[in-house]
C-alpha cells in the first residue's frame, strides 16, 4: 500500500491552485466560472493549512481553515450578488461584457 505523504498532498493543492489560477486568468466566458476558480484557489490554500496542521499536530491550522471558509462563503455570496446585478444591467454574465472601465476613446 502506498502511504500518502506530504508531497502527495502538496501536489494536490498545487494542482488545485494551478487549475484555479489558469481558469481565473483565461476564463473568457462566464463570470460564475471566475468565482468558482477563486474558490479553487482558496481551497488549495485550505488544503495546505489542514495538511500542515495534521503534520505538526497544531490546532491553529484547523482554526484558520474555518476563517478562510467563512470568508470564502461571504465572498461568493457578494460575488454572486454582484454578478446578478451585472446581469440585470447588461443582460449577460459574460466576462468580455465587463469592460466599462475601459476608456471610451
Amino acid at each position, binding site marked *: 500500500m502506498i502511504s500518502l505523504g506530504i508531497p502527495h498532498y502538496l501536489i494536490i493543492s498545487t494542482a488545485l491552485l494551478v487549475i484555479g*489560477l489558469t481558469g*481565473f*486568468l*483565461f*476564463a*473568457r466566458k462566464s463570470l460564475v466560472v*471566475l468565482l468558482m476558480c477563486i474558490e479553487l484557489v482558496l481551497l488549495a490554500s485550505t488544503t495546505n493549512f489542514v495538511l500542515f496542521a495534521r503534520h505538526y499536530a497544531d490546532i491553529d491550522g484547523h482554526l484558520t481553515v474555518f476563517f478562510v471558509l467563512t470568508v470564502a462563503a461571504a465572498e461568493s455570496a457578494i460575488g454572486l450578488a454582484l454578478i446578478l446585478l451585472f446581469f440585470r444591467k447588461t443582460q449577460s454574465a459574460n*466576462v*468580455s461584457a*465587463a*469592460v*466599462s*472601465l*475601459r*476608456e471610451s476613446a
Partner: protein
Amino acid sequence: MNHSYLLIPTLPVLGALISGFIGRRLGKPVTLFLALCAMFCTLGLSVYWLDQINHGVRINQDIYTWAVFGDAVFSVGFLLDPLSVMMNMVVCSISLMVHIYTIKYMEHDEGFFRFLAYISLFTGVMLALVMANNFLQLFFGWEGVGLVSYLLIGFWYTKETAIYANMKAFIVNRVGDLGFLLGLGLLYKFTGTLDFQAIFNHLPDLVKHQYELFGFGQVQLVSLIALLLFIGAMSKSAQIPLHAWLPDSMEGPTPISALIHAATMVTAGIFMVSRFSLLFEQSDTVLNFMMGIGAITAASMGVLAIVQRDIKRIVAYSTLSQLGYMTAALGASAYRVAVFHLLTHAFFKALLFLGAGAVILAKHHEQDIRRMGGLIRKMPVTYLCMLLASLALSGIAPFSGFFSKEPIIEAVKLSSQAWAPWSYWLLMIGVALTPFYSFNLMFRVFHGKENSAVAHHHDHHAHHVDDHHHHDDVAEPFWTIKLPFIVLAVFSVINGVWLAPAMLYGNYFSSTLVALPAHSNWLHIVEEFHGVADSVIHALYAVPTWLALGGIIVAWVYVWKVPHLPEDSQTDKGNLFVRWIKSGYGFDFMYKLLASIIFSLGAFFSSLDRWGIDGLVNVMPRIINVYGQRLRQLADGSISSYAFFMVTGVVLMLGYLVYFIH
C-alpha cells in the same frame, strides 16, 4: 507759529473730495458753491501769505514725518519763499478763473462733477508741488499733477483719440520721470537727504565729486544730476524731443487745456529748475544744453503752430514755443526772467485757451479755423480779450509779454554759454513767428466772412448735448464765461507794468533765485532799467518789437492773400519738406519706429523664451507623456488582464521574497 498755509493745498483737495464723492447728492448749486468757496479761500490765503513773504517772513518747516528707514527720514514739509508764493498766486488765480469758466462750459456734460473734482484735485496737488520743501513731496506733486493730467486728457473716455492721447502723455512723462528719479537717487546717494535746504548745504561737497558712469569714464556728478533732473523737466515742460504729448493733450476739455496744459502744470519743470537754480548753476554743460533745447523748441514749435488748422492745436504749439523761451532763459541763468515769463504767460495763454473754448462752444464744437471767420461782430468781448492776449503773447509793449520776453532774448544774447549765439537767433526767429501764428488765428477766426456755411465737419463730443442749435446763432458767451476773460485780460495787460519792476528788476527774487557771478552777464539789463515808461519807449528801438509788428503785418497779408486755407486733401500732396513740417518734424514717426523696434525685440525674446527655454523645460513632460500613452494601453478595462497583472504581481513579489530575502 502760523500754520494757515497748510490750508492752501488742503482746501482744494477737500473741494475735490466733496465734488467727487458727494457732489451728485448735494446737487449742482451746493457743490459749485463749496468748490468755489474752497478756491476763493485758497486764493485769499495765497494773497495773505504773499503779503507775509513780502514782509520778510520765510517758512521752511517739516510738519510730519512720513517714514523713517534707518537713517533716512522722509517728511512732509512746506517751504514758503517768494518763488513758491508767486507760483501759488498763479495757480490759484488761474484755477479760480477756470473753475468759474467751467460752470457754463461743462454745464451739459454728464461728467460735470468728475470734472470739477479733477480740477480741484489738480489745484491741490499742484500747490503741494510748489510749496514742497523736499524732493519727495515735490515728486508726489509732480506725479499727482501727471495723474490728473492723464485723467483729464482722457476725460471723454469713450473717444478713442482721447484715450490714445492720455496714454501718450503718460508714457512720455514716464520717460522724463525715469531721468528725474535717477537724479533724485544720485542726490540721495551723495547727500543722504532729499530736503532742499540740506541738499544746498551739501552742494560744495557735491561739486567736487566725480562719478564713474558705466564705461564712459568720469563725469562731473553735479552735471549728471542736473542733466537727469532736467530730463524730468523736459517731459513735464514739453521740450523737444519729449514734447510730443502736449499737442495731443488737446483732446481734453478746453478748460483743462487752459489750466493744466498751458498755464500751470507744464510750467512745473521750469519751476523745478528755478527752485534748484543753485544746483543747476554748478554745471555749465547742462545750462548750455538747456539753452539750446529751449531755443530749438521755441523756434521749431513756432513753425508748427503756423501749419496747424485746429484752433486749440495752434495755441498748444504756441505754448510749447513759449515754454522753450522759459527754458532758454533758465539756460542763460536768468531764472527770475524765466519765472516772470511763466507768470505772464500763464495769464495770457490761459485766456487764449478759454477764448478758443468759447469760440469752439459758439461754433458747436467746430475746432477748424477754416470753418470760422467774422466772429468779431457776434463776439466782440471775446475778440477784444483774445486780441489783448495775442498782443501780450507777441511781446508788444506795453503788454505783459513784452516785459518778460524781451529780457529773455537779452539774457540769451548776453549769456556766456557756448550755444548762446545761435540760440539767440533761434529765439529771434521765434519772436517773428509768434505774432504771425497768433494773428493768423485771430484774423481767420474773427475777421473776414463767416465760413459757417461750409461747416460739415464736426468734432463730435458725444457727451455734449447742445448740438441741436443752428449755426447762425453764434453769440457772445454767458457772463460766467466772459468774467474770467475780462479778469485774465486785465492781468495780461497790466502784469508787466505792474510786476516787472519788482520781480524782474527789483529784489523780490534776489534771495531765492541765484545765479553765479560768472553767469550774471544778463544782470546788465537790470542796470539799464530806468522805469517802465523808459522800457516801453526803448521798445521802439528794439529789434524784437519790429519783428513782432512785422509778424502781425505778414499775418495780415497772408490772410488777405490766402483767405481760404486749402483743405487737407489738397495739401497732403505737398512736397516732402511740407509733409515733414506737417507731421510735426516726424517725431511721432520716430517714436513709432522706436516703439516698433522695441516691440520686435520683445517678440524676438518672447519667441526665444517660448521655443528655446520652454522647449527645453518641456522635454521631460513630453517623455513622460509618450510612455504614459503607451502604458495606458494596458488598462483596457477587461477583467482578465487586470487579473493577469494582479497574479503576475503576486508571483513577482513572492519570487522576490524567496530569492532575495532568503
